[in-house]
């Protein structure tokens, strides 16, 4: 029963993550670097057709569209060992780049929308029953943020019934961190508005946390960018395992998301993964029972977002456990977690952790019996948006770095104010979700009248 997903990779970050993601998927399904199914994999019962389709000559092609406004990264992919894998008609690159400017990316996308939509619609027509789109991008740069925002708006318009999930890389924002772009507050704010209004689910990948994990946890001497991206790809492939190895539930994306997202605007998910290794290094001996995995997933140091989970509460949690798992242990583990109050839940809804068991790929060797991914909707994610707002305020008050945005003829400076409004409301909503009266939030009765009584 097909429910295909089309992946859109945008900008340098998006394409680099995407490259690792497809490498990972190919390994898991036993597809070689040029799309041919390996000998040992011909009898699998995994569902490849969610992410791949088959060409006339039986080789598998990813349902992916690779977009960038400058040629370098796409050229790198075309010269890599996996170049024969992708559909050559699905590459799109322009010449000039967006220069870290959201406006250049957005209006660049608008100028090119004919060709982009042609590619996307061709892929959509090639699927029997398209479920939705997955967009990979960063929000701090120019292309990923600007062109990504434009595509979100356009896809919402053209395909109103299809899901849009994004894997958005948030920049390193901490005071003690190393930011890599000066104008990231501007770009992030403008993109956050579109992520809030036009996407159905955003999986937040925070560079701050990824840096921290790389330095502290991975025990690698000098991790380079592609190893960090492998970490991201592990998370992405783990979150799609239930779609690709069908079980008795959670076989499509909408099922996964429905239980995680209670209200339409609170759709920013954080992820955690354990055990964290790269390149299948054998780590120190550790217990990998279900309880341990689930417990570790709730620890802050395994969570790939830099907002603290100690404040605020969980709205919903989904754990995807892979490996040799005794299903009876799950019930016990859940009970234990509830007893020890390891996770604090919202007062207005059901307070439980959902667990989905999934099979592992038979072609990939892992050193661990059990591994787990957590997708959680936690109210404290607003801390990330708060940081963006603060940094944005500082720069905007001084009107610094605005020249290049003004250079784009169609860009209005008020766009910044509209975006700020949307993000502030989002922060308020998350804060209100922690309280028991969230159900009446947003209605006109209630709070205001209390104050003036």
């Amino acid at each position, binding site marked *: 029963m097909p429910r295909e997903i089309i992946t859109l990779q945008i900008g*340098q970050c998006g394409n*680099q993550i995407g490259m690792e993601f497809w490498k990972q998927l190919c390994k898991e399904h036993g597809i070689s670097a040029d799309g041919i199914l390996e000998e040992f994999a011909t009898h699998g019962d995994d569902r490849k057709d969610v992410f791949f389709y088959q060409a006339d000559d039986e080789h598998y092609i990813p349902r992916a569209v690779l977009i960038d406004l*400058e*040629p*370098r*990264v796409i*050229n*790198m992919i075309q010269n890599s060992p996996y170049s024969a894998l992708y559909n050559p008609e699905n590459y799109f690159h322009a*010449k*000039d*780049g967006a*220069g*870290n*400017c959201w406006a250049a990316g957005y209006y660049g996308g608008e100028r090119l929308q004919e060709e982009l939509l042609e590619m996307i619609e061709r892929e959509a027509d090639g699927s029997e029953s398209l479920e939705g789109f997955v967009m990979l991008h960063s929000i701090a740069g*120019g292309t990923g943020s600007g062109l990504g925002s434009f595509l979100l708006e356009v896809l919402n318009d053209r395909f109103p019934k299809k899901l849009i999930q994004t894997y958005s890389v948030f920049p*390193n*924002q901490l*005071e*003690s*961190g*190393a*930011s*890599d*772009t*000066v*104008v*990231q507050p501007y770009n992030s704010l403008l993109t956050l508005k579109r992520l809030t209004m036009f996407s159905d689910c955003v999986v937040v990948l925070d560079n701050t946390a990824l*840096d921290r994990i*790389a*330095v502290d946890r991975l025990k690698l001497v*000098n*991790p*380079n*960018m*592609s190893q960090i991206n492998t970490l991201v790809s592990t998370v992405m492939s783990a979150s799609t395992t239930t779609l690709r190895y069908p079980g008795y539930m959670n076989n499509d994306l909408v099922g996964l998301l429905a239980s995680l997202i209670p209200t339409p605007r609170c759709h920013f998910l954080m992820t955690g993964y354990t055990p964290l290794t790269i390149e299948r290094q054998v780590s120190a001996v550790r217990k990998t029972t279900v309880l341990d995995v689930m417990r570790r997933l709730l620890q802050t140091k395994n969570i790939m977002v830099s907002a603290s989970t100690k404040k605020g509460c969980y709205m919903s949690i989904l754990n995807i456990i892979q490996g040799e798992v005794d299903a009876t242990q799950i019930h016990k583990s859940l009970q234990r977690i509830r007893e020890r109050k390891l996770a604090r839940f919202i007062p207005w809804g059901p307070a439980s952790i959902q667990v989905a068991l999934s099979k592992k790929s038979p072609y990939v060797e892992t050193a661990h019996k059990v591994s787990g991914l957590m997708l959680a909707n936690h109210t404290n994610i607003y801390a990330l948006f708060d940081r963006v707002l603060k*940094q944005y305020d*500082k*720069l905007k*008050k*001084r*009107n*610094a*770095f605005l*020249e*290049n945005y003004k250079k784009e003829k169609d860009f209005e400076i008020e766009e910044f104010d509209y975006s700020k409004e949307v993000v502030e409301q989002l922060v308020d909503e998350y804060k209100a979700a922690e309280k028991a009266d969230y159900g009446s939030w947003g209605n006109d009765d209630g709070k205001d009248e209390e*104050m003036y009584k």
Partner: protein
Amino acid sequence: MPRELITVQVGQCGNQIGLRFWDLVLREHARHNKDSVFDESMSSFFRNVEIKRGNPINIPVGDGRNSLQNLKARAVIVDMEEGVINQMLKSELGELFDQKHFIKDVSGAGNNWAHGFNYYGPKYEETLMENFRKTVEDCDSLQGFFMMHSLGGGTGSGVGSYILGLLKEAYPEVYRFTTSIFPSNDDDVITSPYNSILSLNELRKQADCVLPVDNQALLNIIQTIQAPLAGKGAGITEGKTKEEKPFDKMNNIIAHLLANITCSMRFEGPLNVDLNEITMNLVPYPDQHFLLASMAPLYSLLDLKLQARGVDQMFKDILTDQHQLLCVSPLRHRYTALGLIIRGDVAFTDVAKNIKKIKSDIDMIYWNKEGFKYGLCNLPSLGQPYSALCLSNNTGVRSVFSSLQGRFDKLYRRKAHLHHYTEYIEVSLFEEASTSTSDLIAQYLELENVKEPSFIPRLLPLI
């Protein structure tokens, strides 16, 4: 497909820098491009030309596998006297330049900005525009113009300023970067303050980004490199006396600067930085586009093969006074933004760690505490496993402008040498230039002194 850069070399200084620059770029690409194919990275600076029967035809990049036939540099060469150009043509790199893109005259501008700006400029305007049109046509997707010139002389400063104005009008969307050599205190040209202040006015209006360089700073760098080696006699035969300035070595440093800025455009890396990203991230207000440059390690600049020092040391060095290309102490002034371009095999966690350290060491303006931009490029520069280039918007540049203005005032008060200039321009231009410089200095001073406003809590309404 790639983004091309056109270099514009004006005047004696500009052309000498240019020569060193092309030499370096050729060696860099030769080391990277082992199969001698004309790939896309070469296309940023060169054209591949087939010369058959006298009519040169451009060979496009195509799939990046055409072999090299004849390389021609994408350069426009301007000089008002023939000496330097002839030397260039006679040198080993002579073949690289296309005779048709030379604009030259015989007598020179006589160290007179006005002569360059108001006489030679308009005289050659048509030829210049024609030349630019042709070079721009050869480009697929032009990203920027790089001007190399000095501010102390006549041609580089005067004609250079005029050309910037022409380019801004004809190609407003193309970035105009300049490397401007500011005269040192003991410069050999007496009227250099006049020439510099007049050019500064134009640079402020017409250029998108200026990388000022000081001859004195370059000399200091060379002495820093050579001092520990002089005693050991490590293979440098010093045939020059102390009085003779080692211009070749100094120009090499600037060549490295330009090569490093564009390395991310030409070679791949995990985090790319384009020229337009540099202006986007490092120029908060349009007038303040003067970026302080520094590089580490210094040894790479003279192509000496020495023991590489640690990565952390490199980041520490890049903030010190000796590594700056201007005589400025950046740590004593305030930063508005800082950009790093790192080449070679450096793990980005090292970069992150060091940026955190730098953050705590420097005085960054309060509203842009996280104002860092960095880029990583895989290909290291010649001879070193890794190197870093730091471009920062630092209020310290105002001290260079101030001292220049001081020297200008000394001469102007006495109206010394003024009659040479008034032959071609009005005196009011001097006034305008002087006020413009004072204005610029005041802007930087204001940024340096601004303090974070203390937080005044809003009064709560009494219910």
